[in-house]
């Protein structure tokens, strides 16, 4: 069974640009979660999508946004990139109520 897949693996952007990160959940999972793992800061919750709807949002500015598609895959968009947005962005997926919660390997975003 394929796990949670994220693309691209690495992404380099210039300050002020926009970044788009993608996540494909495990087959059957309807929930997708996004986390930011910045150096020395642990994992910070960004967004939770379920059945195409945004269900919860962490303490991040509105330039962090996303969506979930009918096939349950998800996209995270970061607008007006800042240097401090450089981090590993992790996607996780689960069945309803967190059953089978599994992380992908992440997208390393570098803002220069």
């Amino acid at each position, binding site marked *: 069974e394929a796990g*949670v897949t994220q693309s691209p693996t690495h992404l380099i952007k210039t300050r002020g640009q926009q970044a788009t990160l993608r996540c494909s959940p495990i087959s059957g999972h309807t929930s997708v979660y996004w986390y930011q793992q910045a150096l020395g800061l642990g*994992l910070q919750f960004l967004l*939770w999508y379920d059945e195409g709807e945004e269900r919860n949002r*962490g303490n991040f500015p509105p330039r962090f946004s996303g969506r979930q598609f009918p096939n349950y895959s998800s996209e995270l968009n970061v607008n007006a990139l800042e240097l401090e947005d450089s981090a590993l962005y*992790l996607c996780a997926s689960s069945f309803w109520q967190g059953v089978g919660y599994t992380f992908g390997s992440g997208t390393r975003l570098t803002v220069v």
Partner: protein
Amino acid sequence: QQQVKQSPQSLIVQKGGISIINCAYENTAFDYFPWYQQFPGKGPALLIAIRPDVSEKKEGRFTISFNKSAKQFSLHIMDSQPGDSATYFCAASMGWTSGSRLTFGEGTQLTVNP
């Protein structure tokens, strides 16, 4: 009140020794406490988890001890092996129906020397 505090930040033990990582939380609404293991270049993987109605859970060499009154929980790795060298995160959540998400500790980098 959403924070989970984890210590130590780094830990070095000898092969065969016991590794102990501690976490503390404030929010008494938390009802699920997992531990994750993360290797370089990989996402975190669930290691073991506990709910507050039990004080201890053991799976192989890994044990979670939970102290509800002190709002603390810890991970013990018995007979630590070099392959256990990784970053460990404790986490907590308070029920999926409330729009829960995992709140993570800061992580502990464990090195097991051969």
